[in-house]
């Protein structure tokens, strides 16, 4: 966990409102799957927390982010060759266990699951990927999951690609039996995943300030009524630990 000026090697639109930024940074060598970095976007005050999609070399990470407001819009306008201040890697990522796994991602929650899948595959385990999007135009990283060797299933809410409906619909339609799951995506999806599965982990998204556990801006409640910080205690939590 430290700050570093990273060099932008690529910043390109890969799907509707969704961008891929490749960064040269030595933070890459310290990154665990499911961790995030805080990106300092020029002209904006607070940093933007963005999950690490992929570590592609000892000095290179990939961020995949969605333009949802003015800050991420400005981030999408940054050019190759510009430097960007990163703080990270932050948080507790997904565990890499000695077993097969199903990764379940929704929308811009899909990216951190790619690095996670690659680490399971590197250890010789089978990874099933179930990815949900609003429509085919918003679909991301399907080819990348397949290239890793994941059995990949797609759900779109409008039915324009794969199973029509949610990731749960795709799991049922394809009769997928894996019971250990890792998931990241919108809250309704994480709730549905937590109702269907007991063995696994979910990664949460939150508005943050410090990103390191000091400010208490991003807290969630655990089942006993205690508080947990998404940034420092998470963003990855065991299913059932947090009140979603």
């Amino acid at each position, binding site marked *: 966990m430290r700050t570093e000026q990273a060099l932008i090697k690529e910043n390109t639109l890969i799907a509707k409102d969704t961008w891929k930024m490749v960064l040269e940074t030595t933070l890459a060598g310290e990154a665990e799957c499911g961790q995030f970095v805080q990106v300092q976007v020029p002209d904006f*005050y607070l940093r933007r927390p963005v999950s690490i999609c992929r570590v592609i070399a000892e000095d290179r990470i990939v961020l995949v982010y969605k333009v949802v407001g003015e800050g991420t819009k400005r981030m999408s306008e940054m050019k190759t060759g510009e430097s960007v201040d990163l703080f990270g890697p932050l948080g507790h990522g997904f565990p890499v266990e000695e077993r097969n796994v199903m990764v379940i991602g929704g929308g811009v929650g899909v990216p951190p699951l790619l690095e996670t899948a690659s680490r399971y595959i590197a250890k010789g385990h089978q990874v099933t990927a179930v990815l949900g999007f609003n429509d085919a135009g918003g679909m991301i990283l399907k080819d990348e999951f397949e290239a890793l060797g994941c059995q990949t299933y797609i759900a779109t809410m409008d039915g324009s690609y794969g199973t029509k409906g949610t990731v749960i619909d795709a799991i049922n339609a394809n009769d997928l039996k894996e019971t250990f799951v890792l998931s990241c995506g919108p809250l309704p999806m994480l709730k549905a995943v937590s109702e269907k599965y007991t063995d696994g982990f979910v990664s949460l998204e939150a*508005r943050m*300030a410090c990103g390191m556990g*000091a*400010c208490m801006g991003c*807290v969630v409640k655990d089942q006993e009524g205690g508080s947990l910080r998404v940034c*420092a205690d998470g963003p990855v939590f065991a299913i059932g630990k947090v009140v979603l």
Partner: protein
Amino acid sequence: MDLSVKLPGLDLKNPVIPASGCAGYGRELAQLYDLSRLGGIAIKSATPKERFGNPTPRIAETPMGMLNAIGLQNHGVDYIIENELPFLAQYDTCVLANVAGATEEDYIEVIEKMNDSDVVDAYELNISCPNVRHGGIGLGTDPELAAHVTRMAKEAAKKPVYVKLTPNVTNIVSIAKAVEEAGADGLVMINTLLGMRIDLRTGKPVLANNTGGLSGPAIRPVAVRAVWQCANAVKIPIIGVGGITKAEDVLEFLLAGASAVEVGAQNFVDPYVCVKIIDDLPRVLKQYGYTSVQDVIERSKR
């Protein structure tokens, strides 16, 4: 260069202190640098009992700043004494314990419990938090109430009491004078400005608490003005806080009449900001013809 400042209860090796709520109890920043480098640390507010605080979202970005509505989340004074203060004991830095509550009795309870701690050097009476319904800012906006709680805190305290003032008043000088009269050993100013952002898509406030406290560089001129006004009206030392991001800003507060500073929101932008400021301060003081921090303080007296 000599950066030290001597204030009641606070023998600061330099004038830079992370502000309450921006550094927790030091554990996070300690992963990045040696806390002994800091002049002091103002720890997250302590209340008698554990508080979860406000619902989320608690954070919203603003132009050159941010809103927060944390709501004084903390584990309660007993937990803090048992689990957090021992961690800070290992560092050679001053500890300013921020004390908060819903009632006057709450402030007294926290102070009495912390009195016996060797770790706490002074109290920072938080009568200025805009994010709690009772106590807090309610006490800090009325000179008589502010003086009353200050007097009670002084009677209970075995350590110096600094009072943290809110800028959300018509006349901050009248509050400053009232708490000085009541025996305050120093002032910390300013707490956050009450603000709001509305989400254009939902038509509703971004913060679950609706309103929050504005901090960051956007409020620095307000803070400098408040310090300047009060420094001309009271004799007790002032710790300036509000939007500091660099060593030049520290000098600005010292010139306004502050004797030390707290750095708040900028810790979220650059977690190393306090040590960067400490490293850069000699250069900036020299550039403007000062020989020490004390030299600036002496020459700024009016």
